[in-house]
């Protein structure tokens, strides 16, 4: 048994070497397929970071009436932070609001002038509320409007921002759906291409496979070397893809950081190294084995 197994491995390796041209062509196709799997794998954390980044920018502000003291507002703040949908609440006093405004518009003489003309601080104290998810803002606002402190509130600017928030929400869920859809479509195309390449490679050996059967070789003795070739091709393709992935991630890391500072594909790659290599190996070797198995089966029916 062990002798047969060794022989199958040896024959598989020999077949790989003797058909080196065809083997290399199959490896090339496999590299493309595994690269696609890698891309889908890396895009997932990148898109999560991007989406989280957009979501962070969405919040609602509750403005309090002119005469409400900061103690009251801080009490309200602690009430609001108890709402399960609320992720974070931040208090901005009248003075802080003024400071922020001046800081932001100090270079705009018209605005600065009109502020001095007013003579007093026109800003209201406010609470910035962030929910866990964009869809939860509606609920938070409803809770605020039915709460005991609704008389203290001057206005909630949710209604002004509502269209933006809803748009972000629909874009995020849309992006997820499109991502899943394209992942599935690409994966199916890639698998079909890899399968067909291997099938064509084995088609050349179709007659040999039939002869092997006719002179008394068992199915596994015939099939084995082709499966070994599939494994070798998948393994080499996975290794090549790993090198390409590393090269590209190192090369583009700095450029991507200038566009999206939160994203470091290099660190995503390093922290997922083993899992990524496992996915690449599984894609390559899995495709190699399954395609060879199915392609050979046709010629064994004799």
């Amino acid at each position, binding site marked *: 048994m062990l002798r047969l197994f060794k022989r199958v491995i040896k024959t598989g390796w020999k077949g790989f070497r003797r058909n080196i041209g065809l083997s290399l062509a199959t490896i090339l196709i496999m590299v493309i397929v595994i690269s696609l799997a890698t891309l889908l794998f890396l895009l997932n954390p990148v898109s999560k970071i991007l989406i989280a980044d957009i979501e962070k920018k969405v919040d609602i502000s509750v403005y309090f009436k002119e005469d409400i003291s900061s103690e009251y507002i801080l009490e309200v703040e602690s009430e609001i932070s108890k709402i399960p949908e609320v992720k974070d609440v931040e208090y901005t006093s009248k003075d802080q609001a003024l400071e922020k405004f001046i800081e932001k518009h100090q270079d705009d003489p018209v605005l600065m002038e009109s502020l001095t003309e007013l003579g007093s601080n026109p800003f209201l104290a406010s609470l910035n509320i962030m929910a866990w998810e964009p869809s939860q803002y509606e609920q938070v606002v409803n809770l605020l409007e039915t709460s005991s402190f609704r008389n203290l509130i001057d206005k909630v600017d949710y209604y002004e921002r509502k269209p933006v928030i809803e748009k972000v929400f629909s874009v995020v869920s849309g992006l997820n759906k499109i991502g899943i859809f394209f992942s599935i479509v690409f994966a199916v195309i890639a698998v079909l291409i890899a399968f067909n390449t291997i099938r064509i490679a084995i088609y050349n050996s179709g007659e040999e496979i039939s*002869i092997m059967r006719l002179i008394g070789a068992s199915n596994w003795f015939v099939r084995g070397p082709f499966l070994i070739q599939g494994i070798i091709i998948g393994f080499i393709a996975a290794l090549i893809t790993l090198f390409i992935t590393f090269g590209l991630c190192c090369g583009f890391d700095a450029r991507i950081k200038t566009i999206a500072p939160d994203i470091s594909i290099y660190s995503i790659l390093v922290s997922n190294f083993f899992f990524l290599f496992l996915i690449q190996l599984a894609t390559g070797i899995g495709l190699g084995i399954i395609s060879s198995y199915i392609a050979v089966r046709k010629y064994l029916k004799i």
Partner: protein
Amino acid sequence: MLSINNITKAYPSRRGNSPTIALDNVSFEIKGKEFVSIVGKSGAGKTTLLKLILAEEKPSNGQILFDDLNIHELKSSQLPKLRQRIGTVFQDYKLFPSKTTYENVAYVMEAMGASEDEIQRDVSQILGIVGLTDRADNFPNELSGGEKQRAAIARALIHRPDIILADEPTGNLDPYHTFDIIRLLVKIYKLGTTVILATHDKEVINSLGKRVITLDQGKVVRDEERGRFVL
């Protein structure tokens, strides 16, 4: 050893014509250690008969018993064991184009699980017998017709099968090489192996003086102990 019982093989026709009958109710017995020639014109059913014995095809009717084993009731996984008891020389050689002469001959022994030492010893010996020692490392496309045929015979013999099926083994050869091959088959027979030779070569049959079964349009028309080629 081999019992052919009422074998009929019909190939379905296209366009509604009646099916083609390749073999029509054929029966005969082959005892162990016999040299049997099966003769007939092209299309008489010789190759079909050999294909049925090798379980490459299934009969439409009847059965073939190999030592009381109905070969067409065997499962796909049981066929290798049957085929390892048969050595086949195909009309078109059927050598593996991607393997050397040595590897072609060694393949059956490898599939049967023989050790490397046994394989090396036996393959060298058989290549010596068929005169291909110098061509061991050549691929089939580097061999002449006669050499290919001898390589095919070496492959059929290497594992010492109980039966040799030879389908027109001299079909593509000149008279000199033809008798070379026939002498080889007779030698194998004398060493105790049953040989079934399908041919339409009149001279070969008449020179042998062995049992001849004549097929015509799928039927056995003659079965003689020391037969001659009569059609």
